[in-house]
């Protein structure tokens, strides 16, 4: 939209050139950016980190059996070689093998999904984009089901690997279908939906043709997303993926700002649209595949968190991406804590909780923004 550049103020100069063309309020700062200075953003980010730390520290105690900090301290102390008395074997395993990795994985996966959603919403210019838009969750479930039902290999590590491979396969097919055009947003969305539908259909066919009740249950449960399979190895894998994904996304913050105004605007400010989209789509596919392979398709985090965070810190990706990661981490840490205790001693899939909490939050954000 060609408008005259506004007189530059410090707040505006923070903006990507493309963003300066946005409607601005009377102070000259873009309305959406809420006039936050760099310093107050840094303070807000530090506060966010503190909240995340506190959330992890508090929620690690919550579960089927509540733990005391003494027990958690002893489990940690033994690993650090401190002179503490070790916990009895099974309690130690509860703390160290299950609870700690689970809470940490919730934080990591929450961050991954939120960043994924943020990037895809910008790349596709679609407010409804979420990490599974490209069909990777369907591809991942096809991989997992194929392994379980057709019995190619065995074991839980096998399922994670197969799910990851399935996710990448669906992404590969998507890229193959999109190879002729310049990765146009609408085409990405439509082709992603088609690929997702194809893989869901394959999953259903495999399930219906040869799976028993037990496999059906396992896959259904897994598709809803559950943090129960969290172990240290998944935490490490996901943490590596998250760090790589966050770093790449952060480096592409400015092109992302451009892309959210459309390919033409982005190109006019020197963004290599096709390459940038390709890199960003690959990164999100890797993030989403790792998350889905580890804990299933947890819905709503990747859709709601970016909107909520954009509402607070504005649309600049340099700021939006790290805040989305923080907010996603805090959100999933707490929803998973709820999933552990609401129907204790049973657990409910965390995906059910994220949707239950996410829907009202989503409505609230849309209302506040006057979009509903």
């Amino acid at each position, binding site marked *: 939209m060609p408008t005259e550049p506004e007189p530059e103020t410090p707040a505006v100069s923070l903006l990507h050139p493309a963003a300066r063309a946005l409607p601005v309020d009377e102070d000259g700062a873009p309305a959406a950016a809420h006039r936050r200075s760099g310093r107050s953003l840094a303070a807000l980010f530090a506060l966010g980190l503190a909240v995340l730390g506190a959330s992890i520290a508090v929620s690690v105690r919550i*579960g*089927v*059996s509540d733990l005391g900090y003494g027990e958690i301290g002893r489990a940690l102390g033994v690993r650090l070689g401190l002179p503490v008395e*070790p916990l*009895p*074997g*099974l*309690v*130690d*395993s*509860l703390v160290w*093998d*299950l*609870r700690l990795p689970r809470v940490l994985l919730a934080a990591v996966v929450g961050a991954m999904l939120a960043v994924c959603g943020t990037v895809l919403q910008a790349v596709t210019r679609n407010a409804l984009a979420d990490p599974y838009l490209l069909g990777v969750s369907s591809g991942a479930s096809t991989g997992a089901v194929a392994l379980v039902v057709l019995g190619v290999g065995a*074991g*839980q590590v096998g399922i994670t690997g197969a799910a990851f491979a399935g996710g990448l396969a669906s992404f590969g097919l998507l890229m193959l279908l999109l190879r002729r055009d310049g990765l146009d947003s609408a085409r990405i969305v439509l082709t992603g939906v088609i690929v997702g539908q194809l893989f869901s259909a394959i999953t259903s066919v495999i399930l*219906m043709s*040869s*799976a*028993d*009740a*037990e496999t*059906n249950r*396992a896959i259904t*449960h*897994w598709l809803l997303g*559950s943090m*129960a*399979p969290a*172990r240290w190895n998944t935490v490490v894998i996901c943490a590596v993926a998250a760090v790589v994904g966050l770093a790449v996304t952060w480096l592409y913050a400015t092109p992302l700002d451009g892309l959210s105004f459309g390919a033409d605007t982005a190109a006019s400010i020197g963004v290599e649209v096709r390459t940038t989209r390709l890199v960003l789509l690959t990164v999100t596919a890797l993030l989403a595949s790792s998350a889905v392979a580890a804990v299933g398709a947890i819905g709503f985090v990747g859709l709601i968190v970016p909107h909520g965070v954009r509402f607070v810190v504005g649309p600049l990706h340099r700021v939006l991406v790290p805040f989305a990661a923080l907010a996603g981490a805090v959100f999933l840490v707490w929803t998973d804590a709820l999933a*552990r205790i609401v129907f204790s*001693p*049973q*657990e409910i899939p965390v995906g059910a909780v994220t949707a239950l909490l996410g829907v009202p939050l989503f409505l609230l954000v849309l209302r506040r923004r006057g979009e509903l």
Partner: protein
Amino acid sequence: MSRRAAAGLLAATAVILSACASPAGERTSGGASSGVSVTSCGQRLTFAKTPARAVTLDQSATETLLALGLAGRMAGTAFRKAEISPPYRADYGKVPVLSAKMLTAEGLRAANPDVAVASFTAMFTKDRVGTREELRGIGLPTYVSAVDCPKDGPAGATPFDLLFRDYRNYGHIFGVSDRANRLVAEQRKVLDEAARLRRNLKGSPSVAYVYSVFNGTPYVAGKGGIPSEISRLTGVRNVFDDVGEQWPQVTWEAVAQRRPDVIVLGDLTTAASPAGNTAAQKLATMRAHPTLSRLPAVRDNRTITVTAIEMDPGVRSVNVLRALVDGVRRFGHAD
């Protein structure tokens, strides 16, 4: 630390003792604290002393242990799918119920068990109580019913042979071999009596076993499970014996097409089961089905109701056998 070392030493001694002094599954000596080792589904379990805090992960495992009089050696039960059978009710009340449905990985560890017993290998996944290898790593032996692990058993072993192997293994592990052998003998007798039905059959009657109905389609007994073996024993053919899975999901049309003379309906009544799965509801579903309602077995109500979990391997499995024999006689397919 010293306690751990002592426990390790004890375990090591037990391994050595059992390895050199005894064949598999035998007690090394008469004492209650001597080492015992059994094989369960590919794992060798060694018990330095008789377990006193067993946790059962499903109802069939629970009732089997209760039938062996082991309530005092159990720290908890989980996943009750039906009413507890009357003879075990009093004992069942003495053991804490850890979870109405599936036990979680945390729930299992929090109960501080010294052995976990289950009827199905599927209980031991990361999203449930954790894998068997993982639990072995933290010193918790896991016993899985031999029926769910047929590859592990001797060639040609029937599901009942494998079930009886479970009883004997429990006998070794918990030091109640006499009681286990008695239970085997009792149930063996039921099997032999039921096998006599063969000679008195009129024609070649057939049966379909409907365990549950989920999303409008039934799960029936295929080949390889307890029901299929019951059919083999009695000569009442299982119409889905050509499906090489224990509980395949089929269509109502397929049930109608295979024209079973009698239908065994699994009764599922607790909250842990999917809705609409009592035997009466299943019959109503079949009666409302345009094709199936014309099937003589449905039209004339030649159905036999059993508690669904009795079709799983467990101490109550012989009840299905008794019910089928009674039903087949009642409906005039045998003398």
